[in-house]
């Protein structure tokens, strides 16, 4: 399949994502320049980590308004898979494609370390073949990963929580230990940990590969992901 990796000025995990997708997982990858507006017929869009536009103003705020983003939004609206990793997650939040916002880490410092997180939802193209409750190990590396949403919204999106930091492993003070969320449809996923840094055994974990392999299988086999419930009420039914 064909991945598109968006390159913003200041993206710095773009080469890492491309390496894993192209050399480890043997997929086609195209670079999507932030200044262009076409997605070039890709099956999945990845927004990589880094400091897009220096994270000036707020993390992801400037990148969310770059010329490529309207196309990313319509790609997402068509139901195709979009993955935001770290800074890419922040961009998706700022672009309104995902609910919530990021605060600075509770420590007020950047944190780079391995964390454990659990899979909370398997109703996304990136987790559909994983187990609910499955524990994954991969690193975080961010200064603004403290996920925030008002209580009502947190209640409302409980079913959209895709990943949660394991107990005692919340590296940033995130509300309800949230490490990753999806949109209502489930096709847009953002997470702070870096799956591309955990896709080769030599780097200490291959759990990140599961996320990429899930979407590859999803796209290539046209697998059907169970739809997310539309609302909390529906979820509780």
């Amino acid at each position, binding site marked *: 399949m064909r991945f598109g990796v968006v390159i913003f000025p200041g993206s710095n*995990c773009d080469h890492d994502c491309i390496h*894993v997708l192209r050399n480890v997982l043997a997929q086609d990858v195209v670079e999507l320049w932030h200044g262009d507006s076409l997605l070039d017929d890709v099956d999945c869009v990845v927004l990589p980590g880094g*400091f897009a536009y220096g994270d*000036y103003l707020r993390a992801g705020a400037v990148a969310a308004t770059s010329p490529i983003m309207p196309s990313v939004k319509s790609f997402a609206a068509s139901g195709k898979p979009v993955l935001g990793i770290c800074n890419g997650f922040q961009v998706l939040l700022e672009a309104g494609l995902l609910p919530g916002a990021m605060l600075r880490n509770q420590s007020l*410092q950047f944190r780079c370390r391995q964390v454990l997180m659990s899979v909370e939802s398997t109703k996304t193209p990136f987790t559909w073949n994983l187990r609910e409750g499955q524990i994954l190990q991969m690193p975080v*590396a961010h200064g603004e990963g403290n996920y925030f949403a008002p209580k009502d919204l947190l209640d409302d999106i409980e079913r959209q929580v895709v990943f949660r930091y394991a107990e005692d492993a919340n590296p940033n003070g995130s509300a309800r230990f949230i490490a990753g969320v999806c949109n209502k449809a489930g096709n847009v996923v953002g997470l702070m940990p870096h799956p*591309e840094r955990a896709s*080769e055994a030599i*780097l200490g974990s291959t759990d990140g590969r599961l996320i990429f392999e899930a979407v590859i299988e999803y796209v290539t086999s046209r697998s059907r992901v169970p739809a997310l419930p539309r609302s909390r009420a529906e979820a509780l039914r």
Partner: protein
Amino acid sequence: MRTLSPSTLSPEAVGLTRSEYDEIVRRLGRDPTPLELKLFGVMWSEHCGYKHSKLTLQSLPSSAPHLLQGPGENAGVIDIGDGWAVAFKMESHNHPSAVDPYNGAATGIGGIIRDILSMGARPIALVDSLRFGPLTDPKSRRIATGIVAGIAAYGNCVGVPTVAGEILCDPGYRDNPLVNVACLGLLRHNRIARSRAAGPGNPVLYAGARTGRDGIGGAAFASEELHEASEHEDRASVQIGDPLAGKLLIEATLEALGTGDVVALQDMGAAGLTCATSEMSARGGVGMIIDLDRVPLRETSMRADEIFRSESQERMLLVVRSGSENRISSIFRRWGLQAAVIGYVTADRELRVEYRDSPVVSLPPYALAEAPAYRPAACEPPELAEQWIMPDVLPTVDPGSALMSLLRGSDVAAKRAVFEQYDHMVQIRTVVPPGGAGAAVLRIHESPPKAVAITVDGNGRLCALDPYRGAKLAVAEAAANLACVGAEPLGVTDCLNFGNPEDPEVFWTFRQAVMGITDACRALQIPVVGGNVSFYNESPEGLVPPTPVVAMVGLVRDVAQIATQSFKTEGDVVVLLGSSAPDLAASYFLELIHGLSRGRPTDVDLTTHASILAAVREAIVSGLVRSAHDCSDGGIAVALAESAIAGRVGVAVTLPYDHRAEVALFGEAPSRVVVSVSPDRLPDLQILAANHGGIELVVLGRIGGSRLSIAGPDARPMIDLSIEEMSDAYESLREVFS
């Protein structure tokens, strides 16, 4: 051309002497203009001109079979095989960091990255060697946390992982911290870039960020002692970094180099355009004509001398093939950077600078670029030998609580609270992260299964007592750190931090340290590919301890065959390789526990050292040993504790030493490595040691349980501590940096 009017400035006003002024007149055949004199002021400053050090540095060994570029360029380059090479260089940013810790450290990172980029290499790793005052002191704490935050802010954003480093504290660094940063880059042989301008008519292209008023005279400011008011008066000499622009400059420059149309390039660091234009033309034996009106500026009212001397960050100067300037410029503009042709290469050897249609500078580039060289007076400090006398008796201490204090001590304690603030994984190369071993290991996925290892080492405590032996030990320790991950040394870059070289005792100390590095690198056959000298590290409180720092890069042929320091498997046998006798002289134990900086450091026997390191490397590469850790600060007790803490497993050992408990436990001696091996492979290790010139091998004990138990030769127990309590003590820096 209109004549240039002579200077009304005094040479002293720009930091030069009367005889240096006479030398300028001799080289120019006339008096310099005020602007020219200011240029000489920065270019002949110690920071740019190396005038008090370059004759001494000539002794350093700088050739090796795999060397592609030695000293004299922006960084050294060494072949790692299969068409790939690494570039590396270390620099200091001490004075700016003393005045403005955050920005000083941040721009230190930016500057060293651009040196590596100038060689055509992609920067793949940063390491830093930091010196602070005691972290119990509020000022030192403010400086230390500011410097760490500055390194994090720049390094994380620019996307180059900070993978290794050291932090050592001493009251002598309280007002003059040291920030030595090294960068490692990766490149293809055929992409090596250089700074020799060539091809008359070729355009000179300015690329990167705009020029502003920051950092004017920064190089000259770095070449004098800090004084009481430095923190306020010298702020304007400190540059402000923009890591986003730094990141864009990396990508745009590498893309531009990929076109094959870049003839030469250099970053604009110390002394800005002045340095870049004069060095590039001097190295190429050509001239340049530069029009300052074309330089992209941040503000409009800048004077010619401000534009030409500004040290604004994130700027490169390129000479490109005639006709390619628009194509190259558009690459930089696509990355959101400035690009402007500001002049041309000329065939005559004259650097001409014009501003508002008038000539402001006209001189031979070599006159600026080649500062005079001095051989200052040297005199051994008379009181040095007195400090070698050890006290007859030391108060008795409990070995267990002494070990806990050492683990808590800032020089030994875990640096996790610092390196977790640095992105040490970006670029997905980091196989052995900081804290995993004495050296970091980075895989080269472009050329599998290769990896490179990098480490940094320096020891002001030892060099203050004996600069020759201390510097030798720093090289020996760096080589041991590489051997303990299984890497063969490729080369060294050094940063030499001393006081005012015009003080004969300081200069003697500097010369001894250079001799120490020279002898150690010759004996271990490791070339010194470049480096930096930082003099004038003084404050009203006095001199910093003499601190030569070496960063050493090594090659791992197969990334699957490496070792780390953590004990891995219960039941494994713990073995000591090397028989040098532990000694408390100049030890960390003596300093931390007894408050004494005394004794003469050991004169490391480099022949023995080399054979032990070769044996350790072979044991790792052949998969014999499961962990390796050399004994350094705090002696064998700290080495054992660190391996146990890292492996979260206990160990019970008996030491072979007949000495008093604290000497056996905490005495320091080079060329000792603690390894662990599965019991069935022990005979193979014994054979390997015998084959390496009969290296002494002592079985110390076994891994297991959850305590560190150390006994003496008569089985008397000396230490018995739980891994948990030791881990807590070892994480003491959390309280300072988190």
